[in-house]
C-alpha cells in the first residue's frame, strides 16, 4: 500500500528539547486528518516534519518516498502566523501559489485565469489590487486558502486555519477546505476547537507533550475516555440531539 503517509519512530529535537517523541502512525490520503491537543503538544512541529522542512530522526514517507528528499511533491502549507509582505498586492500574493508549477518568475495565461477563478470562489475578486496588509483577518485567511488552492496540491497542511476568525468566517474557511477534499486533496490540519475538528475531519490524532495519545476516526476519538485525560479532565463531552458531539471546557472552581 503506497497511498499513505507513513510515520515511523519520528523524533524531533529543537535544541535540547524533544518536541516530538517516537511517533509511529499512518495517515490516509484523500481524507481530512486533524491534529488536536493542548498548546505545546508539538502539533505545528509535526506539520513541519510532514512538510519536510523540519529536520527529524526516524522516517516519514509519502507514497513510499522519504519526504525531505522528495522535491517533486506538491504540498501546500498554510501557517498560523503568516508573513504578510508589505506592499504586495492580493493578486501577487495568490499568484505565488503558482510558482512551483509555472516556474518562479513565469506565469502562464491559464494560471492568471485560474487565480481569477479562485479569487471569485474565495470572495476576494475585486480586491486583487489591494495590498495584503490592508486585508482584515478573515480576508487574509481567505487569501492564504486561495494561494493554497491555486497551488493545486496533493496534500495541504493547515496550522490552526480558523484561530484568527469569528464563527461565521470559521465555517466559511472550513467549507472552502472541504471543497479541496472533494477534489481529492489530502488534508492535515491542526485545530484548537475539537468540536469543529469532529465536525469536519474524518480522523483525529490527539497529541500531548510530543506523543500521540489517540489516533482514530473522529467518532472513536471524541467518545474515548482518554480524550479527557489528554486535557487533564478539564473538558466535558456532550452529544446533541442530532448526534453531533460538543466539547466544552470545564469551569475551574
Amino acid at each position, binding site marked *: 500500500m503506497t497511498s499513505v503517509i507513513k510515520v515511523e519512530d519520528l523524533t524531533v529535537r529543537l535544541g535540547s528539547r524533544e518536541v516530538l517523541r517516537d511517533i509511529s502512525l499512518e495517515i490516509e490520503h484523500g481524507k481530512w486528518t486533524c491534529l488536536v491537543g493542548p498548546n505545546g503538544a508539538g502539533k505545528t512541529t509535526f506539520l*513541519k516534519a510532514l*512538510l*519536510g*522542512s523540519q529536520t527529524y530522526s526516524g522516517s516519514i514517507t509519502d507514497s513510499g518516498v522519504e519526504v525531505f528528499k522528495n*522535491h517533486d511533491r506538491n*504540498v*501546500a*502549507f498554510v*501557517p498560523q*502566523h*503568516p*508573513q504578510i*509582505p*508589505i*506592499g*504586495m*498586492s492580493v*493578486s*501577487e500574493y495568490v*499568484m*505565488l*501559489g503558482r*510558482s*512551483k508549477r509555472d516556474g*518562479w*518568475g*513565469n*506565469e502562464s*495565461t491559464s494560471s*492568471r*485565469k485560474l*487565480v*481569477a*477563478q479562485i*479569487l*471569485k470562489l474565495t470572495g476576494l*475578486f*475585486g480586491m*486583487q*489590487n489591494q495590498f495584503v*496588509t*490592508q486585508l482584515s483577518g478573515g480576508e487574509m485567511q481567505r487569501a492564504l486558502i486561495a494561494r493554497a488552492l491555486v*497551488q493545486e496540491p496533493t496534500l495541504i*497542511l493547515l496550522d490552526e486555519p480558523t484561530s484568527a476568525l469569528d464563527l461565521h468566517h470559521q465555517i466559511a474557511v472550513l467549507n472552502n477546505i472541504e471543497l479541496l477534499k472533494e477534489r481529492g486533496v489530502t488534508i492535515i490540519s491542526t485545530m484548537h476547537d475539537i468540536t469543529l475538528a469532529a465536525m469536519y475531519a474524518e480522523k483525529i490524532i490527539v497529541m500531548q507533550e510530543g506523543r500521540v495519545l489517540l489516533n482514530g476516526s473522529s467518532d472513536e476519538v471524541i467518545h474515548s475516555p482518554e480524550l479527557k485525560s489528554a486535557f487533564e479532565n478539564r473538558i466535558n463531552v456532550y452529544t446533541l440531539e442530532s448526534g453531533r458531539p460538543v466539547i466544552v471546557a470545564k469551569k475551574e472552581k
Partner: protein
Amino acid sequence: MKTASTESTLSPIWNWKITALSFALLFFVGILAVSFGPVSLDFMKIIKTLFGLPGGLNGQERTLLIDLRLPRALLAALVGAALATSGAVYQTVFRNPLADPYLLGAAAGAGLGATIAITSAGADLYSLLPIFSFVGAILAVLVSFFISGKFFAEPNSLLLSGIAVGSFATAVQTYLQQRNSSSLRPVYSWILGELTVANWQKVAWSSIYIFIALTILITVSKQLDGLMLTDEEAYSLGINPNRLRVIAVVAATLATATAVSASGLIGFVGIVVPHLVRGITHRVTNRGLLTIALVGASFLVLADLGARTLLSPAELPIGVITAFVGAPFFLVVLRKKRLVSK
C-alpha cells in the same frame, strides 16, 4: 478597453515594458550627463562618437568625453545600480522595508578600512583605499554573521548584530580620526561620497565585481519573492530559504562593498530607488530587480550631474544631492502609496 471583470483574468504580475523603459531612461540620462558641464558637448556628436560613426567629437572635446565624463558617468551608474539592487535584496531577505545596503555593518566596516588606509598610508592613497574599505566591509559582515550565531533562523538578530558591529567600527574610526587630525579632511570627503576621481581603471575593477554580484542577484531574483513568506511556505513552493538567503546576502554585500570602496558612502539610494519603483509600479515582486538596478543607475548619474553643475565650478558631495533630492521625493511617494501600513 478590456476590464478584468469581464475577462475574468488578471493583469500580469510584471510588465516587461517597464524594464525596457528604464533601459531607455538610463541611456537618455547618461547622454544628458556627459553632455553637460563647464563645456557643453553636442548630443548628436556624443552619440556618433560613442558608436564610432563619422562626424563625432574630436580633439579636446573627445578627450573630455572619453577620459573624464564617460568614466565618471559609468562609475555613477555602476554604483547606483549596485546600491539600489542590494537595497532591494536586503529589504526582501530581512523582510524589512527599512533595510538598506549599509546594514550588517558593511558601510561602517568600509569606513573604518578607508580611515585606516588614509591615516596610516602616506603615499599611494587611492590604490590602497578601495582594498582597505573592501576588506573592512567584508570583515564587518562576517563578524555580524558570526555574532548573530543563528545566522538566518532569526533575521532580526542578524540585523541587530549588524548594528552593534557598525557602531563599534564607527567608534574606532572616530577615534583614529581624532588621533590623526591632519587627515580629517580626506576621510570626511570620502565619507560624504565622491566620484571626482573616477577613471577607467576604477571603472574596470568595480564593474567586474558589480557585474558578478548583479548577475547572481538578478538570476535568483525571481525566487526571492518566496523569502517574503514564512520559511515553511517558501519550502512548500520549492525554495530552500536558507541557501537562497546566503547567496543573496553574499552577492548584495559584494555589490555594496564594491560601491562603497569606489565612491564612499552615498546614502539613500538603496532605500529610495526600490521603494520608488515599487510605489510607481504597484508591485513588490523582485522580477522588478533589473528595473530597480537601471533606475538606481539613472538616479545616481543624475545626482552626480547635479553635484558637478549646481555650484559649478565647485562640486557638491554627491551624498548631499541624493539625500537632498531623495528624501522629500521618497516621503511624497510613501505618503501617496501608503506602503508602510494600512
